[in-house]
């Protein structure tokens, strides 16, 4: 309710202007790996009617061939489905008899796509059998044994892992070899799921990031912390409920000792940590438990520091049955550090959006910085952790996006690249 009021004028009252831009889904660690990794494989032109026999001969020669490892690569394909660079090598298709090495030459002759009696067979990874042994196997089996010259086995690069989307499968088919796409993403969230969620949060994401920026600025102006902030939103019941708003408090001195500016400050008072702690205190309050008794230390800087933080902290907008930050979304001005990325995961968030990449310290991204493509200066290529989606290793996963401003000049970071957010 309150969030709706904020949307219809409140943000302007705080002189908060929503950022204009778009959500770009983060690539998972496995997706990055899948997009880069290739292996060498043998391919062979065979007459269509012999394709089965050749396949049997290969499987007899390599009894432990793990075809499951390259199920995403079509095994036997027609000429017309080959990528153009391979069509050139095999033009014209030579289906009636095995091709000797005298005909292995690139040709600009007219294509013969209508001739459908040649097949192109992906034999195996190069690592599975030596080239010389493979040629021997083929020579011992018809039709190659009767041919005047040994068969030509080409070696090509192919993607090592299954594609993550139909688009990627189509691109790989053009670049490498015909790919089979099973409408799944084995290495990350399904593209449809990501798109549906992005559509749901896109209309307000720029506002929440601007609010995060504002609370960060307020605490920065108080000399409490870096210009970093975050907003926790619960959209699971349709309306937008802003559960917590918190800035950074790493330079604040809650006790006798100050935190020297040449150090890293009070790490546990990063804005993400503070916001998560505020959610927990609101839960304790909703459960009728004494939140002060449960968290005796002011070092955590769990209590609101400004009117803006206090305003949302005092809202009774948490359901009493909830657990941690399940169903909640996290909006942060900058890519969270490894500690905060894992805190978001521990807290079971549903989605996370950050406003700027931190290539030297960020824990969420798995690939090299997108900013590099926009010719911006960056000092690092990212740590590659991709903490948001590593389901075989970590016990929770969430969807994550980075924000790209329409005007890329506003993407310049407000804090040093070496800062942990």
């Amino acid at each position, binding site marked *: 309710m309150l969030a709706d009021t904020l949307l219809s004028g409140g943000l302007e009252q705080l002189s908060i202007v929503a950022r204009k831009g778009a959500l770009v889904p983060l690539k998972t660690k496995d997706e990055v790996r899948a997009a880069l990794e290739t292996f060498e494989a043998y391919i062979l032109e065979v007459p269509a009617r012999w394709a089965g026999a050749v396949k049997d001969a290969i499987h007899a020669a390599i009894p432990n061939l793990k075809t499951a490892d390259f199920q995403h690569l079509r095994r036997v394909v027609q000429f017309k489905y080959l990528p153009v660079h391979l069509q050139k090598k095999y033009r014209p298709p030579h289906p009636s008899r095995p091709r000797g090495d005298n005909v292995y030459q690139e040709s600009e002759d007219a294509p013969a796509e209508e001739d459908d009696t040649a097949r192109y067979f992906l034999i195996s990874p190069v690592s599975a059998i030596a080239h010389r042994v493979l040629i021997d196997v083929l020579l011992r089996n018809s039709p190659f044994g009767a041919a005047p010259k040994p068969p030509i086995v080409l070696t090509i690069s192919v993607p090592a892992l299954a594609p993550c989307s139909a688009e990627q499968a189509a691109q790989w088919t053009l670049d490498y070899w015909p790919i089979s796409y099973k409408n799944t993403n084995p290495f990350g969230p399904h593209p449809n799921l990501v798109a549906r969620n992005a559509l749901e949060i896109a209309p307000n994401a720029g506002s929440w990031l601007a609010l995060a920026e504002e609370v960060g600025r307020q605490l920065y102006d108080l000399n409490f912390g870096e210009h970093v902030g975050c907003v926790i939103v619960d959209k699971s019941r349709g309306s937008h409920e802003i559960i917590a708003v918190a800035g950074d408090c790493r330079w604040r001195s809650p*006790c*006798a*000792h100050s*935190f*020297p500016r040449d*150090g*890293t*400050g*009070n*790490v*546990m008072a990063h804005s993400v*940590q503070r916001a*998560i*702690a505020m*959610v*927990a205190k609101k*839960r*304790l309050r909703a*459960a009728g438990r004494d939140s002060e008794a*449960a*968290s005796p*230390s*002011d*070092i*955590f800087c769990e209590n609101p520091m400004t009117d803006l933080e206090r305003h949302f902290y005092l809202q009774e907008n948490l359901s009493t049955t909830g*657990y*941690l*930050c399940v169903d909640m979304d996290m909006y942060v001005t900058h890519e969270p*550090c*490894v*500690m*905060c990325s*894992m*805190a978001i*995961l*521990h*807290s*079971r968030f549903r989605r996370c959006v950050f406003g700027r990449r931190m290539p*030297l*310290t960020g*824990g969420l991204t798995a690939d090299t910085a997108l900013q590099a493509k926009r010719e911006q200066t960056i000092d690092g290529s990212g*740590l590659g*952790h991709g*903490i948001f989606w*590593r389901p075989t*290793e*970590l*016990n929770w996963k969430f969807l994550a996006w980075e924000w790209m401003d329409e005007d890329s000049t506003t993407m310049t970071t407000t804090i040093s690249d*070496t800062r*942990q957010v």
Partner: protein
Amino acid sequence: MNAEEKVYHERFMREAISMAELALRTDETPVGCVFVKDGEIIGRGMNATNKTLNGTRHAEFIAIAQILEEHPVTILNETDLYVTVEPCVMCASMLRQYGIKGVYFGCWNERFGGTGGVLNCHSDTSVDKPYPVHGGIFREEAIMLLRKFYVQENDKAPEPKQKKTRELKTEILPMDIHAPKPS
């Protein structure tokens, strides 16, 4: 590690285990730790995720908050951590950002360990100074505490059918080592 060093480190790991035992008695995941500077314990902590309803309140966070109430943050540069379970990714990164001197732990955490279990936050690329880690001190005791909690948890589990079938297994580690119970 020579015999003399072993005695030294085991003394503090014993203290960390007693913190974990205290956690077990108070219905928290049995992970305990002590921070040691020049042979003296300057802070103690145990998991407090259930009491605080905050999934980030691990033993290391609790102990460091206590230390920073009394000492300047730079004391951590001369302080070692003894913790019964390998620090998680979050704590491992936090310890590096604070500039911890070194970390000694009991059992590895294959589900979200940050110093070898899953990531290597103590030694991989970072803007912060790396720190040495040494795992396996009283490993069996640390695991046994977690198993006791796992069984105790099951006594309170909502499905009575399941709890009867669960017993003190010897080869299975609980998955959510630090996570608070669903309320």
